[in-house]
Structures are given as C-alpha cells and as structure tokens.
C-alpha cells in the first residue's frame, strides 16, 4: 500500500485545521482491472462488510466491490437504522447478537463515528396473542444470553412517557418486549466506515459499474450456466472481469443477478416505505415497535421521528411511495402517541426488500461453484450487515460454510428445513 489515509481523531482535526490541510478523499477511485480474486456485486453494507472482513480477517485484498449506482444507494441508505437481536428463532437470535457485538465496537474498529445509540428497544403487544409471542421471544432470547424481558404498561410509560398506555385506544397497549441492547445508528456512517476500512486494506470500490452478465462454464442450463457450473468472471458496463469467486449482495435485485449465473432463488422483491418528520426536541428515548399496528419509530440525534411500516402487499421494483402508506402509518403512530398530531412530515421514501418465504436470509454457497449469495434479507438486512460480511468472508476464505450461517443456506428449501423467523418486522404479530 502506498499511502495510509489519516486516522480520524479530535487531535488530528485540530492540527489539520490549524495547518489548513484539506482532508483527502475517503476512498480511492482505482482504475478497473480485468482480474480479481473476489468480485463482490453490490456496494451496500453487506457487500462492503464482506470485502472489509476478507481483507481484515483473512488477508484477501485483491477484491473489487462493484456498485451500479453509488455506495450505500440501496437499502443501506434507506433503512430506519434500528439495531436489535430480540428475534424469535434461536438461529436468528444468535446471529443478530453477533452483529450487535460487531456494531458495538465498530466505531473503534473502523475509526469512524457511527453514532451507535444503545437506547433500548420496546416491541408493544396489543393483544393476548402477541403478549404470548413476546413471552416466547423473551424466553428464547434469555436462553441465548440476550437481554430481553416482558414489561407491563406502567414500565412502558416510564420508558416512553409519550406513549398512550391507557385503555382508550382501539388497540390498548397490554405489555411489551423490552430489549435494552437495541438502538439506532447512523447507517451512512456504517457504509462509509466499511468502505474506508476496506480501501485502507487495499480493496477497490467501483461505483457506477453495473454487472450485466455473469460468466459460468460447465453448468446444466443454457449457455453452460446453472447448477454444476463454475464461475469464471463477470461482464460489466465497463468491461469484462475474470474472477474465480463472485458474491451476490444485491438485496432487492438479487434475483436478477442470480439469474445471470443460472441460480434460481426463492425471493420476491417488494418495496418498504419509510418517512421522517421535522426535527423537534428529544421526547422519545427508546425505539418503539408495534407489530399489530405495523409501525416502528425512533427519534434521531437530530430530533426527527423516523418511522416505517411493513412491506407493500405486492411485488414490484418500483420505489414510488404511496399516500396510503403515509396516511395509514401516520394514523397508527398517532394512535400510539396522540400528542404528536401537529408534527409535520419532512419526506418519505422506499427501498427494495428481497423477501423469502420464511423471512430468513439465503447465505453461502450455491449449486454454481464460486458463486455465493448473501441475499434474502427482506426487512432486516441492515442490522445483519457486519455479521453477514464476517461470515461470508469466512466462507470464501475457508471454502466451508461457517456454523452461524449454516441454517440459512439455499439448500434448506430442498431439505424442507425452513427457518421461520416470525420476529421479522414484515410479520404482523
């Protein structure tokens, strides 16, 4: 490596300001070469984390991350930045807990202020059935060593006084699953942190580089693609690249990329909408989720309320929002917090989610040799970014599936071993 970028610190900030030094670009723009050891398709948190951990943990630095738009332009920059590990399946809980661990030390590991605020996370229950699910989740969590417990309306009121815990609403709050380690983070900083970290270690990031085809030989399908084949490289809008390993980290576009290699995925692409209000003084110190009302909300460090819903009810690659979403979700939010009715909406957006039948991801090796997938992330991809990158990097480096992602392999659909993750945000409880 030629020149290491300066580390970020308060002392350096002052000294560079005093010497009127301009900060260099956060990552290089290297020329696109025609051969790499590993090509990662998708420059979001998953793709960048995979590239970063390949270099950091396994010394594999001849890696290119190809992104058809700009880094973090997809779900990584569109999610509501909530982190938690209070899932329902033991496989899910242990996996997301590892991710929270990585998020906790991320600011130091990546030398980037990711603004992780571990403020606590409450999932409201409005019916006996969902209260029962909360108890179930709490017990599964405790068994895995994750801090979760069920609390009553009085404790909820203490944590979030703005919530209406009376018996007046249509769906009164009966209790909640309280998960103190949950919180929010600045998602852009996570993307930039991984990009900067990977760049420092020699990984190349290529933006505006769209993969148009994946080259496979020896497969069963047309053109030598499909099961039994072997990846030899990718074709992009900027030329051909040869690579023995290609990783698909393209979330909503995962089916289109996998089709290029002849691998069929159990994925449907649906948009998820979110919105943000004007900033106000901090009044909501925890993350609040209601499965029954299909809404989750948190207040950012700037004071804006960020809220989102479940996925739209039909498949589409179109990310135009709808008035129904804004109206419906705002209505649900007002039912939870009647006091915010005068707040104004700033903007609204949508991102594409790659939904699987069991709400669990598809990770690891595929029937095409050298073609790996890290997709099917649906509504919970951001919080899984670091652990996915770490585990995918291990899979690539060791050529075997790590235990943590074993349950999420594509072959589970052939073995009837689905992992029903009903703790996902897309599931109404």
């Amino acid at each position, binding site marked *: 490596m030629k020149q290491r970028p300066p580390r970020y610190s308060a002392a350096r900030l002052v000294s560079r300001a005093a010497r009127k030094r301009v900060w260099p670009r956060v990552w290089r723009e290297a020329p696109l070469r025609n051969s790499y050891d590993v090509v990662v398709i998708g420059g979001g948190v998953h793709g960048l984390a995979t590239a970063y951990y390949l270099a950091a943990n396994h010394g594999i630095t001849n890696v290119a991350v190809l992104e058809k738009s700009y880094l973090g332009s997809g779900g990584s920059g569109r999610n509501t930045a909530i982190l938690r590990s209070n899932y329902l399946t033991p496989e899910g809980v242990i996996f997301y807990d590892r991710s929270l661990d990585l998020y906790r030390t991320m600011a130091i590991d990546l030398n980037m202020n990711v603004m992780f605020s571990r403020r606590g996370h409450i999932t409201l229950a409005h019916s006996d059935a969902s209260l029962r699910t909360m108890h179930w989740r709490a017990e599964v969590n405790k068994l895995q060593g994750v801090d979760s417990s069920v609390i009553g309306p009085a404790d909820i009121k203490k944590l979030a006084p703005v919530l209406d815990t009376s018996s007046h609403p249509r769906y009164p709050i009966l209790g909640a699953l309280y998960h103190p380690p949950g919180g929010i983070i600045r998602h852009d900083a996570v993307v930039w942190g991984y990009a900067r970290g990977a760049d420092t270690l020699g990984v190349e990031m290529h933006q505006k580089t769209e993969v148009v085809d994946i080259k496979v030989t020896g497969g069963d399908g047309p053109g030598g693609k499909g099961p039994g084949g072997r990846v030899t490289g990718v074709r992009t809008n900027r030329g051909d690249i040869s690579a023995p390993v290609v990783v698909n980290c393209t979330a909503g576009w995962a089916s*289109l990329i996998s089709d290029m290699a002849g691998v069929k*995925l159990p*994925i449907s*692409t649906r948009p998820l909408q979110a919105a943000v209000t004007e900033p106000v003084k901090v009044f909501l110190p925890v993350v609040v989720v209601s499965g029954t009302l299909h809404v989750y909300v948190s207040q950012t460090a700037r004071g804006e309320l960020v809220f989102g819903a479940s996925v739209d009810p039909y498949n589409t690659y179109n990310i135009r929002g709808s008035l129904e979403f804004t109206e419906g979700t705002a209505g649900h939010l007002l039912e939870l917090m009647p006091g915010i009715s005068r707040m104004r909406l700033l903007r609204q957006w949508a991102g594409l989610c790659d939904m699987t039948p069991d709400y669990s991801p598809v990770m690891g090796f595929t029937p095409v040799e050298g073609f790996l997938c890290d997709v099917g992330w649906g509504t919970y991809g951001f919080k899984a970014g670091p652990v996915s990158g770490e585990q995918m990097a291990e899979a690539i480096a060791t050529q075997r599936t790590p235990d943590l992602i074993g349950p999420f392999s594509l072959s589970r659909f052939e073995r009837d071993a689905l992992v029903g993750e009903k703790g996902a945000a897309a599931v109404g409880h």
Partner: protein
Amino acid sequence: MLIVPCPNCGPRNAADLRYVGESRPRPDPNSASAKEWRAYLYERANPAGMLRETWYCRSGCRRYFVLERDTVSNEFTNPPTPVAKLGKRP
C-alpha cells in the same frame, strides 16, 4: 397506490384485493418429483418486467384471476385480460 383492473368489478384499489403472487402452473402432485414440487413451492422468477400474477378480489367479486403487470412501471397490460378461468384458483 396500485389500481388493479378487476375483470368483473373494474378498476379497484389494490387494498381491496389480495395479492396471491406469481402465477405458475401447478405440477401434478401424483407424478411430480420432490425437486419439481419444491421448485413450484419456493422458487420465484421475480422479473423486473412483465409478470403473470394472481389476484383475489376479496371485497368485490371474490374471484381469483391472473393479470399481467410490468413490475418496474406497475402498469397492467391494456386491456386487462383475465388469462385464467374465473372462479377457480389457478
């Protein structure tokens, strides 16, 4: 929001209907192999383009029908033609 052209009820808001999903031929359960059956159950084409899909008009005529829609522009083929037999789930 999406306006779905129900062949019986005319244009309806998608909220009035239930999205059943991609419409694919169902293999014969007596002769299909496990591999074919699982492909039918789980694999999705998920195209960015024209998609044949099944809808159920739950608050109108309560019929299942198949329509074609572009998943990028969200436009249905014009005129909307129910491609499957009405009333019977394809």
